[in-house]
């Protein structure tokens, strides 16, 4: 009986230890609970100068969006751009992986479908990478 009690006690102690490990493991990579640990999420550089311009067809539809002012440190990261319309509606979007950058870095997006430039009130950007 005493042996059984010892075994049970030991098992409980071991289980308690690994419940903690399990909890740590459950800080899932997608849970954004990273800030609770040691992970720091930062931008790849000063991005205040990031701006977009666009080209239009003669009918006034957006044919291409050019994003410039991207820091060279962002080379290889993923940039997404969204054409924003009234009430912050998304009119179209594109994603590109930034290639090797020289002195400056830029990206070009196309294939937005039929989006009238007159309806585009702004752009929103997202930049992610490691």
């Amino acid at each position, binding site marked *: 009986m005493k042996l059984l009690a010892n075994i049970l006690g030991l098992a409980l102690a071991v289980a308690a230890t690994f419940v903690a*490990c399990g909890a740590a493991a459950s800080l899932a990579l997608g849970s954004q609970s990273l800030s609770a640990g040691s992970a720091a999420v930062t931008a790849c550089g000063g*991005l205040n100068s990031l701006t977009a311009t666009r*080209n*239009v067809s003669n009918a006034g539809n957006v044919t291409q969006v050019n994003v410039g002012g991207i820091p060279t440190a962002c080379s290889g990261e993923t940039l997404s751009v969204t054409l924003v319309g009234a009430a912050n509606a998304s009119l179209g979007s594109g994603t590109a992986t930034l290639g090797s950058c020289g002195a400056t870095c830029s990206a070009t997006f196309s294939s937005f479908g039929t989006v009238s430039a007159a309806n585009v009130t702004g*752009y929103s950007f997202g930049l992610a990478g490691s």
Partner: protein
Amino acid sequence: MRRLAIVVAVTLGLGCSAAFAATLSVGTWHLWAGSQTLRKAQCTVTGATDTYADESHPTTNNSASTTLAEQPDANKRQWIYLQFDLTACNIPTSGGADSATLSLFESSAPKNASRTITLAPVQSTWPANLPFATALALTYGTSTASFATGTTNSVAIPITVTADVDSFIKSPSTAFGWRISDGSAPVTGDQAIFNSSEAAANKPQLVINYEK
């Protein structure tokens, strides 16, 4: 005792796996989100630098004429040149045209059938007197705009020129305006005449809806 050892070993093994999963590095991610807001406005430019080159009078200076003539006839070709000054609009080169409409007042239309007239961006400066030989030597960009003359006199014709004006905004140093010409085969009565910027009224006008 042996069972106890097995239980402990298995439990340790599973626990180590969990601990390994927990050490997957997440400390090097870069994330950033931002936005850019556009402002919309309109600019109207009335009057332009304009003239027409006339093959049958190859050295005549037509820059002060109140009319602009064009026709495709052999040895009598007439080409109109029109350049607007967009500096008053104060549109930055980072801006762009959402839409742009050129309005020409057609005082005399082709007599028998409507003609298709094309606008070709001129790629260099041109002199006000514009001899026909000089016009022939100019280079032109790809045409993106055209219009039908119709056969009715004294009508204003709106012409969509958004793509060209967008380029003029982004690259002002290359905004030399357009050559307006009829590239189709000549027929009787195919000449069209428009008011120039020297006319008393109904001058060429460019309306730009733009963003910046």
